[in-house]
């Protein structure tokens, strides 16, 4: 029984147990999918299949291996792109946080890249990298890298000053300071940046597949739209949104489990 609970009168909204959470989620999911089904049956448009039609199409796609093949194609540029963005992004962002000259040079340009609609440049990419894998990787990097750089940079600049001073007071060298204090202290936020980078990467890879040449999920979407098999098209889109949500959700879980034990504890109690 916590003493603070009684003393400070604020009671947080009753932390719902796991069971009630599941019930709420189920209601919520049923409501949304139910509305989808009804809207599809009316139908609000000939290009709007019902939920069940979409799920049937999805099931068929999974069974005949089309979906697995599409994901294999889509994940290649996504993983390579996010990998490159993560490696270089964290490196650049961290050095921006550590060295004023790098920060001076880098901060404005990355802020511009983060705020600007970089997607506009994707058509240009094809001129250099053609229509193959490299172009799609490049599209992912363009969208994912700025947020990773900026988050790493902010994480390092906001590292706890009193921890750094503590390290200095025990005669830690600059290298020790960076390796033992600054980077570990910054890692939760750097990881959060990677998660945002993955989300941006998803947008990039889908855009590239729709805009440059249809491959993977983008191909499923484009092809089924062109032959008016709308249920299949919706199934592909449904699957990629679900896939992105699950991936990002898992990254968030990992973030809480490994980097923010204090939040995990609070959530669990």
């Amino acid at each position, binding site marked *: *029984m916590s003493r603070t609970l*009684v003393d400070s*009168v604020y009671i947080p909204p*009753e932390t719902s147990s796991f069971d009630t959470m599941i019930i709420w989620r189920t209601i919520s999911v049923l409501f949304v999918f139910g509305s989808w089904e009804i809207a599809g049956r009316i139908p609000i448009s000939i290009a709007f299949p019902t939920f069940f039609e979409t799920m049937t199409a999805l099931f068929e796609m999974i069974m005949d291996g089309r979906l697995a093949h599409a994901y294999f194609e889509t994940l290649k540029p996504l993983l390579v792109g996010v990998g490159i963005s993560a490696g270089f992004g964290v490196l650049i962002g961290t050095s921006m946080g550590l060295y004023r000259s790098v920060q001076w040079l880098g901060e404005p340009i990355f802020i511009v890249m983060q705020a600007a609609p970089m997607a506009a440049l994707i058509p240009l990419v094809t001129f250099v990298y053609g229509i193959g894998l490299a172009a799609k990787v490049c599209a992912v990097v363009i969208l994912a890298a700025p947020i990773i750089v900026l988050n790493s940079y902010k994480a390092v600049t906001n590292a706890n000053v009193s921890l750094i001073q503590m390290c200095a007071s025990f005669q830690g060298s600059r290298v020790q300071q960076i390796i033992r204090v600054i980077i570990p202290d910054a890692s939760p936020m750097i990881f959060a940046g990677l998660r945002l980078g993955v989300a941006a990467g998803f947008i990039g890879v889908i855009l590239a597949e729709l805009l440059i040449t249809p491959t993977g999920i983008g191909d499923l979407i484009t092809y089924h739209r062109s032959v008016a098999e709308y249920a299949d098209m919706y199934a592909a889109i449904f699957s990629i949104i679900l896939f992105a949500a699950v991936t990002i959700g898992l990254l968030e879980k990992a973030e809480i489990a490994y980097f923010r034990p204090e939040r995990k504890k609070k959530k669990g109690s």
Partner: protein
Amino acid sequence: MTTVIASPTQEEHSRVNDTAQEIVEVSGITKVYPGGTVALRGVDLAFPKGKMTTLLGPSGCGKTTLLKIIAGLLDATEGVVRVNGKEVSGPGPERAFVFQDFALLPWATVLTNVGFGLEMQGVDKATREAKSRSYITKVGLAGFEDNYPHELSGGMRQRVGLARALAVSADVLLMDEPFSAVDEQTRRLFQEELLRLLAMENKTVIFVTHSIEEAVYVSDQIVLLSPRPGRINRVVIPGIERDGKTPDEIRREPGFLDTVEDIWDTLKKYLDEERMV
């Protein structure tokens, strides 16, 4: 001089009740939080009109909970609170609250903050401002009307909170550890000013604190609460004579020191019990 009654829950109670001028009456208050924590059990109390009563006790004794129930901010699980003989079912204009963390609107000036209570009551702007200005002067903040809370020190912010509570002309002032976020020097000065202001305004005050010295120094009556679940342990009447004495003289008086010592002895027992558990 100091009246300390050793184990007096019964007699002391009747004494306070005898005065028959109690403005706030609390009977049979029990508070159980969701999750089963019992914060208060069967609390009966009377607060005499025009006096300063302190709720004192260790962390977790439910003193703030009791204050918020009296304020109508929390509902009691059982029991009733009466103010001026009328049962309370929510906040009302006869009570005003002073918050531990000041609860000032950070986007509003001192003037607007002090006038907030009046604004909620629908008082027109001109009257509101005139009244606010007069209370701002009374709490010693003249000249800061157009400043924002973040430009003030902790002590000054609480003066704004006090002025806001005084401005609505409530009979009862409920103060929740008002000085706990204020540094020690400011706190002592503030206590003096509070006593002076209250003498002028003739308010009934219910004051929550965990500082024994503060309680003994400012109160007419001290209610000692026992920890989890909070119950009334004893009621102490410090009976400090202030006439013609400086604050330092009062703090050095044997009567003052004995009362502090006596309350500390009681609280120490709780701590010992807790340690044994």
